[in-house]
């Protein structure tokens, strides 16, 4: 009852916080997607880049989110920006790793044929390797998104006006209704993002083997 009451009382704040959470996650994932795939392409081609990138991303993902956000806020100021950048850093590992695995998993015979037919390196990447790696890249993106939606709430500690705000103030005021008013939509958001990207993955897999059942 307390929860319903709290939500009714603070609807406009919660709405803004939910939208901010969405925006932060969207910005972080677009950035991580672009940077992650680009790094993945380089890492798939060059052994040194691969070792370095995966190493750094593996370490980065283990950093406590509170510490990372605080450090970034120290340089960038309080607000959404340090959270967006921090989340993008967390999202890198699954995206880079899956891009590398996907690109390197392309059948060597397919690549030999592409080379033998006169495709340039860029054409092989764009027309053959990336389309074939796409299902795995998307799987990494999905995994990263779900993880990042949850971590985004911690961003409230450095001033992001997202769903972490009711959680923070609820803890401070020992008001469990307030905490749940942040936790429940954040969880639903994660589940929702997971489903949407899951559908995209299935549609893609169906496209890749179109008519195989026919």
């Amino acid at each position: 009852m307390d929860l319903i009451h709290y939500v009714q009382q603070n609807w406009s704040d919660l709405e803004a916080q939910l939208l901010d959470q969405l925006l932060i996650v969207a910005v972080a994932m677009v950035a991580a997607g672009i940077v992650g795939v680009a790094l993945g392409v380089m890492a798939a081609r060059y052994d040194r880049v691969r070792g370095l990138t995966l190493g750094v991303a593996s370490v980065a993902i283990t950093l406590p989110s509170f510490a990372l956000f605080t450090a970034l806020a120290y340089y960038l100021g309080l607000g959404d920006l340090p959270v967006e950048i921090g989340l993008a850093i967390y999202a890198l590992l699954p995206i880079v790793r899956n891009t590398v695995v996907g690109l390197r998993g392309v059948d060597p015979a397919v690549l030999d044929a592409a080379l033998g037919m006169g495709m340039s390196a860029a054409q092989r990447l764009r027309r053959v390797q990336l389309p074939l790696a796409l299902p795995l890249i998307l799987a990494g993106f999905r995994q990263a998104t779900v993880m990042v939606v949850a971590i985004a709430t911690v961003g409230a500690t450095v001033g992001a006006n997202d769903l972490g705000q009711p959680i923070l103030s609820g803890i401070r005021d020992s008001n469990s209704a307030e905490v749940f008013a942040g936790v429940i939509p954040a969880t639903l958001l994660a589940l929702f993002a997971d489903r949407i990207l899951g559908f995209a993955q299935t549609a893609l897999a169906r496209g890749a083997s179109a008519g195989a059942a026919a």
Partner: protein
Amino acid sequence: MITFEKVTRRFGERVAVSALDLQIPAGEIVMLVGPSGCGKTTTLRMINRLVEPSEGRILIDDVDTASLQPEHLRRGIGYVIQQVGLFPHLTVAENVATVPRLLGWDGKRIEARVTELLDLVGLPPAEYARRHPSELSGGQRQRVGVARALGADPPILLMDEPFGAIDPVVRLRLQHELLRLQSVVRKTIVFVTHDIDEAVRLGDRVALFADGGHLMQYDTPAELLLHPRTGFVEEFLGDNLLLRRLALLPLRDVHLSRNGTRPNEEVAITASLRDALDATLRSKDGRVAVVDEADWVGTLDADAIREAAAAK
């Protein structure tokens, strides 16, 4: 015409191809054959510069291939490999359209070409154009592989054991189809195989390699079988050498005479000594009549066939 001039290729210490001189005439099927590791595939892959020579040069119609941009060179050379390597995310039609697209043909021209090619390799476009490679049998995939290689009508076709992974019955059919195809398209075909029977069946000429990329003999199939130049060649040709030779000797070239009564079993003069031997084995009295249309022009038996073979 493809010309190898003193071409050597080393991989580290190992010599894969050794000072190779070879001329591949336009419009012919040249088979590169030899044991594993004899450099035949390396030789093939140097033609479209998937492998670069360590020394020497390769000319296509008197143009040094090293002077061309590799991508441009390759778009003018069809390439077929054993594992086919079709693009699994694209349809049959899109696979066949690969090189025309790279060359920037317009959509109408590409579509017409794809239809023509699928018909040529015996895959009706209405049924197959929109399928994906995963929906095809091994033999059908390789037909698409050949159609894709012919995409932009290149004058040269490189085939690296294209039928090696296909079961014997279908392989035989694809071999016949290749010969039928060649009678239409008249490409310069360089074909790698380790199967001497395939080499003799398909080749206008056969280049037989030994370990280390040494060319042992380069001849027509008949010359190779009838006059193997070294022990290595003879050994590689295998146990049924005599039978294979008989298949290459036409009855027209055999001195024939009629004797005794006309035997019941017949063989046409257009056939080979091997066919005559087969008829002899079938015949009740071991004798066979050679006929030109309806005329009885000679009699053969096992002794006569052996003498005819020895005379060659």
